[in-house]
């Protein structure tokens, strides 16, 4: 696996009353979250409807370097939501080692889809990532939370990413 271009800054999330320590002792390395996020077979994609109500649906996707890629039909609820409001949350499937990614989605032109998104998707799901069936979106993380049940509360960690280039 190629390395992320940048290491995000690790912090403690604000969680009063749960005994999350002030010190950084026990905080997880970014690789812990990245690896679990990459390995998740199913993801939950959370978007917001124009009327302000949230929407959640299971989807497939692949993590490459420093962003997550998925595809959805252009008329789907999530697609219509993201056209209006690109902010979204992506959760992994294993609640015991939950990784929550808050980020911004961008719809990619076909030429901008990295080749590895196709090959990794095919290898992971035995299914073609096909922009003709639904545009491919890239979700760039802004904040990532790890909530490891077994290492709770010492392992609870939040990573903050610098804004990368232009963000809508």
């Amino acid at each position, binding site marked *: 696996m190629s390395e992320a271009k940048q290491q995000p800054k690790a912090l403690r999330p604000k969680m009063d009353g749960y005994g999350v320590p002030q010190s950084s002792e026990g905080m997880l390395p970014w690789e812990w979250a990245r690896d679990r996020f990459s390995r998740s077979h199913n993801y*939950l994609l959370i978007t917001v409807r124009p009327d302000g109500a*949230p*929407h*959640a649906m*299971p989807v497939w996707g692949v993590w490459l370097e420093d962003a997550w890629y998925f595809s959805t039909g252009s008329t789907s609820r999530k697609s219509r939501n993201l056209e209006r409001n690109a*902010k979204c949350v992506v959760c992994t499937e294993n*609640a015991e080692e939950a990784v929550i990614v*808050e980020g911004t989605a961008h719809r990619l032109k076909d030429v901008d889809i990295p080749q590895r998104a196709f090959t990794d998707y095919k290898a992971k799901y035995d299914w073609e990532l096909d922009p003709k*069936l*639904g545009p491919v979106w890239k979700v760039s993380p802004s904040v990532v939370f790890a909530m490891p049940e077994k290492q709770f509360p010492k392992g609870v960690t939040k990573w903050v990413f610098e804004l990368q280039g232009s963000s809508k």
Partner: protein
Amino acid sequence: MPTKPKKAAQKSGATSSSVAQPRASRPVVPRSYRFPASLKGMLDWSWARERLAKSYNYVIVTVRPDGRPHAMGMHGLWFEDAYYFGTSPHTRKAKNLARNPHCIVISEDMSELIIVEGIAETIGYDALPKGLSDLSKSKYGWPIDPRMGGQVYRVKPKVVFAFPLKQIATAVTKWTFD
């Protein structure tokens, strides 16, 4: 954006066990999935209810005032077709819900995923349904205790989706509550 529905909290109480069964239908899915059009295999509401009650951890999704979604893991109770949880009024989710009560509750087992879209309302300790505190004690080891200082919320479902991954094509089901 809708404002807080505090008033509805008062109308709770003993009648809540007579909740009507929700209407079952199919969610809209892309044709490329090749799911059958027939309704055969759709799940009974009790399938979802049992799993919602059994889930130990849940994810709650709310929306921040600036429109960004927020998701957090938490404990809670599914009781008489509603979801109950407690949180301090200073948490992100409490602040979000005070502005926008629309939220989503998700069960923990992704292989039998259940997504509940609903509306959250605060509910006074004296208005909690009978049996809820005992259920909390048996599930998590402590009763619902006002001295712990949090606020209790009830999420009433509007739409519920079930995605049982092993029989997804025939069993995927959407329930709508009136």
